[in-house]
């Protein structure tokens, strides 16, 4: 089992993790839009890319990052890559 296969989290943990990355104290849901998250700016994108890489061994392209418009898109990415517990 490699490092990436060991790392999974629940949806609630994932929401908390995303909130921490973007330094959001307000409650976050999958429907929270990108424009409501002040720290989801160019640096926020880089930070998210680095965290996905570090924590889950997921290398995401600039193009895929730009296509994300809400928190749920990040969760979908994790789910698609088997990083969310069912």
């Amino acid at each position, binding site marked *: 089992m490699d490092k990436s296969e060991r790392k999974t989290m629940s949806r609630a943990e994932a929401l908390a993790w995303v909130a921490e990355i973007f330094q959001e104290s307000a409650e976050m849901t999958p429907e929270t839009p990108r424009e409501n998250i002040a720290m989801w700016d*160019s*640096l926020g994108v*880089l*930070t998210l*890319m*680095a965290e996905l*890489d*570090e924590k889950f061994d997921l*290398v995401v*392209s*600039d193009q895929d990052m730009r296509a994300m418009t809400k928190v749920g898109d990040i969760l979908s990415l994790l789910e698609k890559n088997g990083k969310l517990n069912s």
Partner: protein
Amino acid sequence: MRFILVDEIIELVPGQRIKALKHISPLEDFFGDHFPGFPVVPGVLLTEMIAQASGKCLESEDRARGKPMLARIVEASFRDWMRPGETAVIFSEVKKSRPAFATLAGHIEIGSKKICTAELMFSFVPHENFAADLRDEVLEKFLARSRA
């Protein structure tokens, strides 16, 4: 004040790691303010030394990502003082290097003591955004010496 915080590169593996030096003159203006009677190099300058050395490490790699620019100080810790007249030995190592960003971990030693550590993130800005004649003399000098 020139903002060149790396005097010389000692070792360099492009895109992987770097070791460099920075001597701080006792005549630096900032010692008058930081602090009277207790002159020490500001932590932001120690962090910048690691950042500049890290940038040279990334820049020396032959990749068309653009010029590395400090995007985030992920962590920085200061364990001891750097005093007037001392020479910092700067180390930095690339942890992740991706098309859009790179992360590096660095530290500074004075004598054999580690006085500062920092984890930094860089993004890349297209070279055409900078002056066409922008050069890194410290890096060029090292590369020329390596080729000789």
